[in-house]
Every structure is written in structure tokens, then in C-alpha cells.
């Protein structure tokens, strides 16, 4: 028996199988995105920091909205063409739909890419600085990796005297990185303590690895292997001994319950010692001439004297100056600082005057004074309409303000901003360092730093999650529709109605994807 109702609808339900299935599937999708949108509401209501409002460039989002709406129209035309058995027309409209999807994803990729390279940093006083970091230099030129990419220079430097690896946990690439850095500076890293007695018993004088052996990945792996062997051996011994001890204790205390005698039962470590193998849970290396080791901030918990990598490697040594260097600062944001000041009952303006950046960077002080004048003007302007400047107007100096200031002061002649800048952010090369100055922030001032990625705050987290998932839906839908476009010909010739059904179902999904964007666009870009 064939499965019925694939092409023709069942009389009493009036539906084909796939039509029922797609509506069910969409119901489930509604619940999925419902979960995300309610998360958005939760995040926004519960935010304990100033929620970024109207923070994304509207133009790319707006264009994308129209592109998706257009594609929803063309997909219906494609379906209609198929119903009329006009293959050529179907191809054109379906092609247009898939093309729209591709353009949408390209614009999305540009948007994402800009954010992935845009650095933000929150200082201890809750002021926020945004911009782009310095690239790693190779004799005054940008250092170019083999794959042609520049790498940013944002490292924590330590004058390391010794490094202690966790035997079971060390992360190989990081060991290699440490080795490489030490070698570059001509420092040797040697094992501090010998690994003794490994082949025999702990009290034997055989030495498995001599003290003074130079660090290499092979050495670490060798020690790890021996350590794991010893650990397994010792644990087995101890477990067996404990089992024996319990047997004896039970025999000696008939009728007693386990928990009544448990504190009398234990392993006699001294007695076992001759049979135990030496374990080496941590491997310590001395560095003969203290070398400067550098680590990515996200991998290290730094402290003067003793820092710790995420794989439990301990770096002993003095913390060196490792400021975070902004090649260009393109925004200073005091909204969070102002919020905190109000909570503490301090005048926000005073708090801003006392903030690190105003105290330490002349350009910031200048910009802030200019900004205050601008706000005053705006206040007068808005007062006519019985309105007030928003917190964002008051406390944030964005790249457009910086550009405007430069323009007013005659430093550039670029005008306020160009369409391209709406997409890609400010054009540093053209506007120069006068507009977007250089700044070095001492590491100690930094409370939290991140690119504009999900890590930065819950706004970006939910933005990337919803739009990313929506993007995956666009890709998935485009793949399916593209499949009908490029591989549908055979089915068109044998069973065009079936193909039309499939396109209809695909189109329904496509409308749904469009609908999600219709919700996502205003909540992320406009509100």
C-alpha cells in the first residue's frame, strides 16, 4: 500500500499530509521563537545596566526587512507559476527568492563582521570606551599572519620566573605557545624537581626524569603518562586496602551499623607506602633568565606574583604593564556610570568629571565639554516640543558625535557620515586620528572587556542568538527552495502538482521566517 494524500488532499480534512505537517512544524517554531522572545523580555526588564536602545545601524536592517518581504512575495509568484505550469516563470521567481536570501545573508555577514572587530571595555568606574585595538606590529608595520590576516595586539605580559603545569589538564597549544615565547627570548625552561622512583617504588632512588630537563611537549606527555599510571596503581591499592579494613572492622564489631564504625576505618598510608608509585600532579619549571610571557586576556586570571591560566597552569612572576591600546577610540559612554552614580546618590556630572578617562585623556575631556554644550543646545531645542534629551543623548558620545565635532572644528571635510559608514562603521583612514584618537588603558582600570559579541552584555547575547538562529532558518529555507529550483525539473515533468505542493509548503515556511524578522527588526533596531 502506498501512503495516501501526498499529492491530493483527503476529503474530510481537506489537507495533504505535508500541509498538516508544515503547520504543526510552524506551531513548534512559534514556541521556539516564543521562548527566545520571552527571554528578550526577561533580559530587558531585568537588565541591571542601561539597556542599549537604538544602538544598531538602522539602514542595513531596514534594507534587509524589505528584501525579505520582497522574497516572500516572489515565492508566492513562484508557486503560482508552478500551478499555471509555467516553468520558466517559476525559475525566475524562485531564483529571485533565493537571490534575496543570499543578499540578506551578505548584509547580515557585514553587520556581524563589524561587531566582531569592534572592541568595548568597561572601566572600574563603569565608564565604557569603544573602538578598535592596535594590531600587532612587526617593525612599525602591521604584522601579517600567513593567511593574510592582521592580528590584534591585546595581551597580558608577565615576567615569568617559573611555570607550573597541571599534569592531567595542560592544554597542548598553550604549552607550545609558552615554549615558543621562551625560546624567542633565549630563555631555558627546566624541570625544577626530579620525578623520582617512577619505575619502582616511592622509596627507591631511581629517577624517572632528572631535574634540569628542558621543557618540551614530549616531556610533559611522558610525565603525564607515568603520573596517570601511578595514580591508577595507587588508587587501586588504597581501594583494596580500604575494602580489607572494612572487612576487619565488620568482623570486629558484629551487629554494628556501617556509620557507627566508619570513623575507625581508614587506609594506613604508611603501611602502603612501599608499594605506592610516585605521583606528580603538578610539574614545575624554572626559567633561567626570567622571560616575558604573553597571554590572551580571556585565557588568564592575572595577578601580581601568581597568575593562572584556564587549564590550571600557574605562572609565577611579576605582572608587567600591559595596557589595552586602542588604535582608535570611537565612542565614550557614561550611561552606566551615570546610572551607578544615581544609585549611590552622587551627581552624575560630578562622577563623570572624576572618571578615569576625563582625568587622564585630554581628548576625552575636550570631547565631553563639547558634548555638554551640544546637549544644552539640544535641551533648548527639545524644550520647545516639551521633550527632554534621553539618557543616551546626555551621556553617550558616539562616533557620529566625534565626526560632527571634527567637522565643526574643521579637522576633516568628510561631512557627517556616508552611507557606507552606516554599514561598516566610521572610516578611520579618511577621518584620521584627529577625529578618533589613540588611547592606552592600563589593565588595572579595566573591569570587563569584550568585542561586541554575546559576551559583552545580554542585549548582544539575545541579539546574536535570535538573529543568528533566524539566519540559520534563512539558509535552511533557501537551501530547500534552491533545491526545488535546481533539481525540481524532473519532478515537474513527472508530477508537477506534487512539486507545487512542496513549493507551497516551502513558501509557508519562508513566510514564517519573514515573520520572525518582522518581530526581530523593531525590537533590536528600533526600540
Amino acid at each position, binding site marked *: *500500500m502506498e*501512503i*495516501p*494524500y501526498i499529492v*491530493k488532499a*483527503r*476529503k*474530510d480534512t481537506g489537507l*495533504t499530509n505535508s500541509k*498538516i*505537517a508544515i503547520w*504543526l*512544524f510552524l*506551531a*513548534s517554531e512559534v*514556541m*521556539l*521563537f516564543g*521562548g*527566545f522572545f520571552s*527571554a528578550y523580555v*526577561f533580559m530587558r526588564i531585568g*537588565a*541591571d545596566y542601561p539597556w542599549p536602545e537604538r544602538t544598531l545601524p538602522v539602514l542595513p536592517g531596514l534594507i534587509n526587512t524589505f528584501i525579505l518581504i520582497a522574497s516572500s512575495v516572489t515565492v508566492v509568484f513562484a508557486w503560482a507559476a508552478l500551478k499555471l505550469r509555467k516553468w520558466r516563470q517559476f525559475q525566475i521567481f524562485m531564483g529571485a527568492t533565493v537571490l534575496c536570501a543570499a543578499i540578506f545573508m551578505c548584509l547580515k555577514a557585514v553587520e556581524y563582521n563589524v561587531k566582531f572587530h569592534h572592541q568595548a571595555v568597561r572601566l572600574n568606574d563603569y565608564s565604557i570606551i569603544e573602538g578598535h585595538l592596535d594590531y600587532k606590529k612587526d617593525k612599525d608595520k602591521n604584522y601579517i599572519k600567513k593567511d593574510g590576516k592582521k592580528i590584534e595586539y591585546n595581551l597580558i605580559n608577565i615576567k615569568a620566573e617559573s611555570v607550573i603545569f597541571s599534569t592531567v*589538564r595542560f*592544554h597542548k597549544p*598553550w604549552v607550545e605557545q609558552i615554549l615558543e615565547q621562551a625560546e624567542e627570548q633565549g630563555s631555558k625552561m627546566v624541570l625544577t624537581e626530579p620525578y623520582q622512583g617512577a619505575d619502582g617504588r616511592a622509596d627507591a632512588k631511581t629517577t624517572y626524569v632528572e631535574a634540569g630537563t628542558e621543557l618540551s611537549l614530549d616531556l610533559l606527555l611522558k610525565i603525564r603518562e607515568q603520573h*596517570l599510571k601511578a*595514580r*591508577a*596503581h595507587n*588508587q*587501586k591499592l*588504597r*581501594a*583494596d586496602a*580500604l*575494602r580489607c579494613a*572494612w572487612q576487619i572492622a565488620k568482623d570486629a564489631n558484629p551487629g554494628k551499623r*556501617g*556509620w*557507627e564504625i*566508619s*570513623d575507625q*576505618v581508614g*587506609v594506613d598510608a604508611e603501611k602502603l607506602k612501599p608499594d605506592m608509585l610516585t605521583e606528580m600532579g603538578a610539574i614545575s619549571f624554572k626559567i633561567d633568565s626570567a622571560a616575558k610571557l604573553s597571554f590572551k586576556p580571556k*585565557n588568564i*586570571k592575572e595577578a601580581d606574583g601568581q597568575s593562572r591560566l584556564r587549564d590550571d597552569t600557574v605562572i609565577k612572576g611579576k605582572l608587567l604593564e600591559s595596557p589595552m591600546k586602542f588604535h582608535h577610540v570611537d565612542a565614550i559612554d557614561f550611561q552606566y556610570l551615570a546610572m551607578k552614580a544615581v544609585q549611590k546618590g552622587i551627581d552624575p556630572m560630578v562622577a563623570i568629571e572624576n572618571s578615569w578617562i576625563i582625568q587622564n585623556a585630554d581628548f576625552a575631556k575636550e570631547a565631553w565639554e563639547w558634548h555638554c554644550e551640544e546637549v544644552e543646545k539640544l535641551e533648548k531645542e527639545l524644550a520647545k516640543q516639551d521633550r527632554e534629551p534621553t539618557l543616551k543623548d546626555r551621556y553617550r558620545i558616539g562616533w557620529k558625535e566625534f565626526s560632527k565635532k571634527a567637522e565643526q572644528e574643521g579637522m576633516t571635510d568628510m561631512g557627517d557620515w556616508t552611507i557606507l559608514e552606516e554599514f561598516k562603521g566610521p572610516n578611520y583612514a579618511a577621518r584620521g586620528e584627529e577625529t578618533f584618537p589613540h588611547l592606552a588603558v592600563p589593565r588595572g582600570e579595566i573591569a*570587563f572587556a*569584550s568585542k561586541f559579541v*554575546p*559576551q*559583552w*552584555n*545580554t542585549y*548582544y*547575547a*539575545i541579539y546574536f*542568538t535570535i538573529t543568528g*538562529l533566524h539566519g540559520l532558518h534563512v539558509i535552511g529555507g533557501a537551501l530547500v527552495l534552491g533545491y526545488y529550483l535546481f533539481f525540481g525539473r524532473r519532478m515537474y515533468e513527472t508530477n508537477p502538482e506534487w512539486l507545487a505542493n512542496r513549493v507551497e509548503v516551502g513558501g509557508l515556511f519562508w513566510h514564517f521566517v519573514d515573520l520572525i524578522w518582522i518581530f526581530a527588526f523593531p525590537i533590536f533596531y528600533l526600540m
Partner: protein
Amino acid sequence: MSADAHSHDDHHHDPPFWKKYIFSTDHKMIGLQYGITAMLFLAFGFYLMMVMRWSIAYPHQPLPEWMSFFLTDDWKARWLSDGKLTGETYNMFGAMHGTIMVFLGIVPLGFGAFGNYVTPLQIGAPDMAFPRLNMASYWIYLIGGLIMCASFFMESGAAKSGWTNYSPLAGFADGQIVNQWLAGQTQWLIGLVCLITSSLLGSVNFITTIINLRARGMTWMRMPFFVWSMLVTGFLLLLAFPPLEAAGIMQLMDRVAHSSFFMPTGLFTSQTGLAELSGGGSPLLFQHLFWFLGHPEVYVLLLPAFACVSDVIPVNSRKPLWGYKGMVYMVLVLGFLSFIVWAHHMYMTGMGPVISTFFQTTTVLISVPSVVIITSLLISLWGGSIKFTPPMMWACAFIPMFGIGGLTGLPLAFNLADLHLHDTYYVIGHFHYVVAPGILFGLFAGVLHWYPKITGRYMSSWLNQLHFWPSLICMNVIFAPMLLQGMAGFHRRWYNGGDGYLDKIAGKAGEESANIFANTVAQHIDLNILMSMGAWTLALAQIPFVINLFISWKTGKKVESDNPWNATTLEWATPTPPGHGNFTTEPVVYRGPYEYSRADHDEDYLPQWVEPKNKTAASVSQDKAEPAALEDKSDA
């Protein structure tokens, strides 16, 4: 017999082995695959529990050899301390026991296996609406399950933040693993997303099949209660799982992209100090999204058991299901209500009295449909000529066991009582009564009931006795003391069974102490040993079942006909075992599903598919045999 005839047909070549048994698109084979896989996962989950029960009963003693002999020394050295279970390992086992039993065991067994095998047969469909999608559901489920379990053998170990995976604990567990994709806690989430995808595809398939592929004459109110249960289960899976998927994806973002969806500001842990996160997230949001699934999930577990029992009881009491229509409406109400009770799992989060009153009310309300269904099942026995066939024993045990489970849930519905009982062994006892002797017994009834259809042979009644009685006793030995301990205040996550709370000044252990709670613990701690013994005995009691399952396949008593139980529903109209396409002739349905002991009929059962002999008889108007009007035949 007809299946044999089928295979001799020249037009039907047997597909190759891998296509027939492994990448099969036949709903019956997929159902069996689900069933076997789910039982293996159940066994694994059971093993984890046995180890945990050792730690609870004998926290200071090394695991016995019989429990751990197949583990490598290296693994033991990593996860045990002097051969004893560490708290961390206990958490890992506990989290995975819950996950495996719920997501990888019972749901696939109830919905995946029984739903797949029986539903299309009972509605007279040749297969599921989307056979290849059906295959995909199974494989995605298997992959998800394996991903979750594989993490036991990795550096990080498996997930260890409870089966509920609450943030922020689950957000930073395994944080020391540099590549977060290789952390057990992350793999749990990936596995979960796979499982949700699988059940989403499955539920779409089930609902479509039930709506569109019913045989001619199979009107809604002629569908067996089994099919109704599966329909509601399908909707629960369809609509309740996606919010958890959203939560899972957000937690995945928290782990791999270091976002702060569920991480509050200023989070401080002993491992890493002040977390280097933006903060600003809401741990409560995870709980809401989790329990939005979590409660419907309970009914996803339960309804397939109801379904099996509702088929076994009429067949073996030779009496129509009592109050069939009422049961159908009640299962629909149950499905709806299950979406608005979730926050009764969260009374302890300090929600306001208005919200807790709302959820308290809905929770009490939802007990009504459950009670109506269970009472209908009970009344169905009344005045019947009951035959205690092997499946019937399980079905009869299901009713009181589920009854205990359900009734002990009532105190938990009330905010006031729940504040005392929350997170104690009382809760564990309550839901295990529902799931283990309740749901599992119902599913055992199903296995024994349909086994003759699947294999053409009965399962051994003697081995079944050997399975049934010890299981019934052990289940109560394990779970009844939990209710007592829970009321005394035993916390559900103690890895040492409360030993840490005893007042053990050297040599004075067990004596009356000034520490009142220590005295309470001392009074009840010995129950741990009883329960653990019960659990291990329960494991032994499953051996006859496994033997029965395999031995009877080849040596069981052969069935005398295609309808060995003299049942009325459509699956018994197929050849034994049903071939590809299920029915040899197109099935037509003339009447409701439970026509037993009719006065106007000679035999004590009148199957749905038997054409009425006498159109003028009074039964015709009742039968309303007008299948031809339902569709036009050109489609087929």
C-alpha cells in the same frame, strides 16, 4: 502466515539486511529499534542508580567489585577516591541517571516504540505519513543519546548539574576545560538539542498520521484511547519542547560564547573567583523555560502508559472501556492543563502569592482528569470476566501504583506543604512511584500484550511471574521509605545518604545528641540500606524479563491466530507479524474500538473491521457504517 505468503511474492524482493533492520523506514522496525535502544539506555540508567545507591547506603566503603569490575583503573582513579564514590561523581551519575531515564529511556520507549509500532496499525494506516522522517527521528535520537553518554569517558566527565541543568551551576561547571565543545556539560546540551529535534520530527509525523491516515470509517470517536493518548502526547512534545530547546541554545551560548543569559551580575565561585562575565542575566528564566517543558514532559511519560493499560484492560476483562468518551475529553483537558502548571516546581524561588496561588489552583485542577482516567480504568474491571494473562497482571498493578504516585503528589501541589517537602526524598519517592512502578509497569503490560503480534509467539507466563512479583515488591521497598525519609527532611541530593549530618563524636555514634536533626537522620538512615538492597534485587528481578524477551522469540508458544487475545482493535487484523504496508486488504472500520460482550453478538468480541452481517439489525444505526463517504478512492 500471511507474511510468509507475502515474501514469496515475486514483486516483493526482501530489502538488504541494512535496509531492513538498520536504516529501515518501516514504522514497525523503527518502533522496535526505539524499543531496544530505549531498554539499553534504561539498563544503563539503572546501573548508574545502583552505584549511587551504594554510596547512599555505604558512603565510607569502596564500591564492590561486582559493580565496577569492568571499569578501567584509570577511570576509577579519576572518578573515585579510595574506591568510594566522590560527591562530584555522585552528582554526575545523578544528573545522567535522570536524563537517561527520562529523555533516553521512558519517552522513546513509550512514545517512540509503542507509538511507532501500534499507532499506524490501530488507525489502519500502511505506515507513518513520513517514513523517512521517522527514520531520521530515530537516528537523531540515538546520536543525541550517544553524545550525552560518550562524555563519561572524557576528561570532564559527563554532565553534573542535575537532570534539570539549572544555571548558573550548569553555566560554569566544567569551566576548566579549555575547549568547551569537549566538556560533558556542553555535550549534554548538544545531545538535548538532538533529542528535541528528534521528538519534534516524531511528533509532527505522529499527529499528521493520526489526522490524515485513518482508515475508512475510522472516525475520531472510533479511535482507540491509545491513539488519542498518542495524539495528545504528540502535541505536548510539539509545543512544550521548543522552549527548552531555546533554553538549551541559550545555555550553550553561555558556555561557548560566554554570554550571560542565565548568569547574574557579580557571580562568584570558589573555582574562579569573580566570574569574568558581563552578568545581567536571569537564572530564574532558565527554570521557567525548563519547567515549561518539564511538566508536560511528565504527561509525555505518562500518557503512553495510560495508552497501553487502556488497551490491555478491556481485552482482558472482556468489557468495553468504561467512559471512553469521558476519557478522551479528559486526556485533552489534561494536555491543555499541563501547559499551565509548570511553576509548581518553582515555589521555592520566592514567587509572589498571586502567582503561586494561580499555579497551585491549576495544579490541583490537573489532578481531576488524571483521576477520571484512572478511575475509568478501574471501573472497566468492574463486573468483567477478568483473565489474569501476563499483560493484565502488570496493568492491574499499574492502577494502585500510579495511584500512590499521583496521590503523594497532591501535598506537593500546595505551596505550604511544598516548602517543607521540596527537594527532599519525598519528591523523589513521589515521582518514582509515578514513573517506575507506574509508567514502567504500564509499558511492561504493553510489551507482553503486543509481543504475540510482533513475533507470533507468547511470552512465557512462568518467567513473567518471576519478573512481576519481585518487581512489585522491590518497587515498594525502594520507594515507600523515601516518602518517610522525605517527610523527616532528608535532602534528595545527599551523596552520602545523610551521613554527614550524623553527630559522630568518636565512640558515641548513634547515641542521643543535642543536635536534633542528627537524631532525626540517625532514626531514618538505616532505611538507606533497605532501599539499596531493594534496588539491587530489582535489578536481579529484571533478568527473567530479558531472558523471556529473547527466549520466547524462538521458543515461545505460537499464537493460534492473528488475533490471539480476541481483541477488537485494528492491529489484530494484520498478518502476524505484519508485513510491509501492514494490511493485506484495505481495512474498513465499522464500529467503536471496544465492542466486547455484546448481547446481540455470539462471540464476546466484535472487532472493528468485521463487516456487519445484517444491515437491518438494530446495530446498524449504532455502527453508522458509512466509510465510503469519507474519501474518494482514486487517491489510493
